[in-house]
């Protein structure tokens, strides 16, 4: 089984150099994306069968590459299998979408060679069973995605995005390198050896913090998120979908693998740290998203929100695991994994939709879109599904995972630690806020870009996207619905993962009456997405047919009423910025230091009145800017070292040598 997986990865790697050749051919991109589609579907099926039929098997393999005394270890246990499914489901969808979408690419040579390599790297990270291959694949994943972020390098903003991304990725890898270094200090690089070792409590604590920094910077935890909203939108849309939907999940995988699997029993304060980072990440991420007007940037910020939700779930799981309540830990962990899967689905879907809009209009700015539901009805439909799903509304999948997390929060008074007792309700409040903001944010995204009247000529003359892209999006939308109405299947499939990671599983769900999900006991809580969906559908159709038959089904068209003041100019509509103005006014002044500066010319003056809005990213201002200034200051001081004479350089080397010898001698 693992052989099939490794061969498919090898096939992806082989496609990378082929991409260089294929990029010059007219239909080369179709062949390449088709190849990726086959390879990723093979991987997806393999991983799925491993997860469903033989989760306890955990086959492993050692290849004679990498470090000569170590080799490259691979292992396919339940956790790896689950994340392989997520990665490759995203990969399949993205490749299918790209068969159509990739033809818009101006310079395919800058994307095609890196795309399969990027997919391969993510797969290897998930499969790796030693620190060396893990880190190499991790770095390879960062570099290939960086190459695609700067593929449209003529845009100055993309170059800046690439620069920030590269910096943050290096920082993350450094943190992970240190973490593995500490873990390997008394065991070696092999994961099996690390698992068997017994490091001290101080050491594991440091490792957890380092992993939170390393994996968290890749996943986009606040305050390490600064690169994400710059880099994710800059890449071509199918790659954006992969980066947001899948690569952040690989980062989550890294965190789970190390914190839940490699290091021994957790301590309660780890969960405190994770929760204190996760909750604010969720709320801040979506508040930032609300303030944006670029579709892809809204989606990137919303990724930060969802990562916050996932980490909150993981934090809860850690807390319960540390206190020995492993049946609740299983609930929280399963909820987090469920959200990993769900977010991969709907975020890929939404990025693909944004890509379709971008391909049809050339615009990412919502203020220039509008009315696309008439010009692109199918894209609009799937985008609507995606928006409802990500806003955590029933009967779609986003709701199920948040509901499970809420159920875990409600069990937290059982925790003995006072700190957690106070932090967890606050985090629950933050999650509730985040859910409500997410709904506002996606009303705005869909309402401004797809509803109303077109705000520019390109939006008025948009056309529906191609068949491949639509197939990919419809498939993802269908998955969103299925996961929403039959969550029991997914919870049961996750049982072996939770068994491995937290030592217990949630109650068996499939086979309960009407496919309800019952996380703890039926008297406590239950939810049945299928019945909710059926009831709403039935009531809606019944009402429609009854009214049409019994009362009236006549309809005529007329100009809009608008309280008697209709205006033909589309600029009269609410824009993206004006839509979020009330929320900006309520929360913005605290969170963003938002200020509105109105300029009203005197009555006789012909000058137009102006309204300017200032937003500050406080984390950037308070954390990154001082660091950048400090580095700038230091480099300027050190700069003189570049202009010394040979003799002085030799003196420096000599002094350094003597000092080192002295240190050794003493």
């Amino acid at each position, binding site marked *: 089984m693992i052989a099939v997986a490794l061969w498919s990865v090898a096939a992806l790697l082989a496609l990378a150099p082929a991409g260089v050749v294929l990029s010059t051919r007219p239909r080369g991109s179709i062949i390449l994306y088709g190849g990726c589609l086959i390879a990723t579907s093979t991987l997806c099926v393999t991983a799925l069968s491993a997860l469903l039929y033989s989760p306890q098997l955990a086959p492993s393999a050692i290849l004679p590459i990498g470090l000569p005394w170590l080799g490259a270890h691979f292992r396919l246990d339940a956790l790896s299998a689950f994340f392989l499914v997520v990665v490759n489901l995203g990969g399949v969808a993205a490749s299918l979408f790209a068969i159509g979408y990739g033809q818009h690419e101006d310079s395919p040579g800058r994307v095609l060679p890196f795309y399969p390599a990027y997919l391969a790297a993510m797969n290897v990270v998930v499969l790796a069973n030693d620190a060396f291959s893990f880190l190499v694949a991790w770095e390879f994943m960062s570099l290939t995605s960086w190459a695609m972020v700067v593929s449209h390098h003529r845009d100055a903003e993309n170059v800046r995005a690439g620069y920030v991304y590269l910096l943050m990725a290096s920082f993350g890898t450094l943190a992970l390198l240190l973490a593995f270094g500490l873990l390997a200090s008394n065991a070696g690089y092999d994961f099996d050896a690390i698992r068997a070792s017994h490091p001290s409590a101080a050491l594991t604590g440091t490792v957890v913090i380092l992993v939170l920094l390393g994996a968290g910077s890749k996943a986009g935890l606040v305050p390490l998120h600064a690169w994400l909203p710059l880099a994710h939108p800059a890449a071509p849309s199918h790659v954006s979908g992969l980066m947001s939907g899948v690569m952040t999940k690989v980062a989550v995988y890294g965190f789970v693998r190390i914190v839940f699997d490699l290091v021994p029993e957790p301590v309660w304060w780890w969960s405190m740290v994770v929760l204190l980072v996760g909750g604010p990440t969720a709320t801040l991420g979506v508040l930032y998203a609300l303030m944006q007007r670029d579709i892809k940037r809204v989606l990137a910020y919303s990724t930060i929100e969802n990562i916050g939700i996932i980490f909150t779930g993981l934090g809860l799981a850690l807390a319960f695991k540390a206190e020995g309540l492993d049946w609740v830990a299983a609930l929280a962990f399963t909820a987090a994994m469920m959200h990993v899967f769900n977010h991969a689905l709907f975020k890929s879907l939404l990025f693909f939709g944004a890509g379709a809009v971008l391909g049809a209009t050339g615009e990412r700015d919502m203020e220039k879109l509008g009315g696309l539901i008439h010009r692109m009805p199918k894209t609009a439909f799937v985008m609507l599904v995606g928006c409802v799903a990500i806003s955590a509304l029933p009967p779609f999948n986003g709701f199920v995972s948040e509901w499970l997390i809420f159920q875990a929060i409600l069990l937290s008074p059982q925790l003995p630690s*006072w*700190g957690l007792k*106070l932090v967890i309700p606050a985090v629950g409040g933050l999650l509730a806020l985040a859910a409500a903001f997410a709904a506002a944010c996606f009303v705005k995204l869909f309402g401004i870009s797809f509803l109303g009247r077109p705000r520019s000529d390109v939006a008025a003359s948009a056309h529906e996207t191609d068949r491949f892209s639509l197939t990919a999006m419809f498939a993802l939308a269908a998955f969103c619905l299925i996961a929403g109405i039959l969550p029991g299947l997914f919870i049961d499939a996750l049982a072996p993962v939770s068994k491995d990671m937290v030592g217990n599983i949630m109650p068996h769900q499939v086979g309960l009456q009407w496919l309800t999900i019952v996380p703890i006991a039926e008297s406590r809580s239950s939810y049945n997405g299928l019945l909710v969906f059926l009831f709403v559908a039935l009531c809606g159709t019944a009402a429609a047919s009854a009214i049409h038959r019994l009362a009236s089904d006549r309809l005529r068209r007329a100009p809009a009423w608008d309280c008697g003041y209709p205006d033909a100019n589309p600029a009269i509509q609410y824009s993206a910025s004006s839509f979020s103005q009330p929320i900006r006014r*309520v929360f913005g*002044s*605290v969170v963003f230091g938002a200020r509105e500066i109105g300029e009203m010319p005197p009555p006789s003056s012909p000058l137009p009145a102006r309204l300017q809005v200032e937003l500050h990213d406080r984390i950037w201002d308070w954390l990154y800017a001082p660091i950048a200034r400090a580095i700038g200051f230091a480099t300027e001081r050190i700069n003189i070292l570049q202009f010394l004479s040979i003799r002085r350089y030799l003196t420096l080397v000599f002094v350094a040598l003597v000092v080192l010898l002295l240190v050794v001698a003493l």
Partner: protein
Amino acid sequence: MSSLQFDIAHLLAGSLVLASFMMLYQDRLYALLNVYALHAGVLALSVAWQAYVQQAPHLYITALIALAFKAIIIPVALHRIIKRLGIHREIENVIGVGLTMMAGIGLVALSMVVMLRVTPGADALAREDLAFALSVVLLGLLIMVTRRNAVSQVVGFMSLENGLVLAATGAKGMPLVVEISVAFSVLIAFIVIGIFLFRIRERFDSVDVQALDRFRGERR
């Protein structure tokens, strides 16, 4: 103590915290005074209930003092002062209501943790009373810190004192003499502050304490 007795005591003490929150939320002077009167009324009820539960008749006197002075005389007097000063307009908070409330929640959480942690052996009612009382004290301080108007600062101070009384009755130990002297000191403080209010107004045409800061040459 039966569970109903406990429940009522808990309910009254909790309502005191709630009333403190209502004071934080109010931004009009008259409304603030009314809520303060309510605060004192709840305190009187709470003390009276403790008197009944603990069968300590001297606590009835405390309750009576609270009712007479704090719930009736002082609010009425402050009403008059406000009328004479002509300042029945909105209070300017130093920071917004939302932030103040959040800070308030944080303070309640803090006092809960501190009190429940240091008193594991005491009985449940005393523990909760102490925790609530500390919250009321902290919230009173918060009101004083976040308001600029001298009258609302006075009200903040009075509510703080209410918290102290709650703590004292919950702890079953304050002698009557101390209680009476505290009540009188509060009354004297009130009179002194009242006189000061008029003096401040005479000088600066305002009871906004920022005027004092400006006079001292300080800047915000």
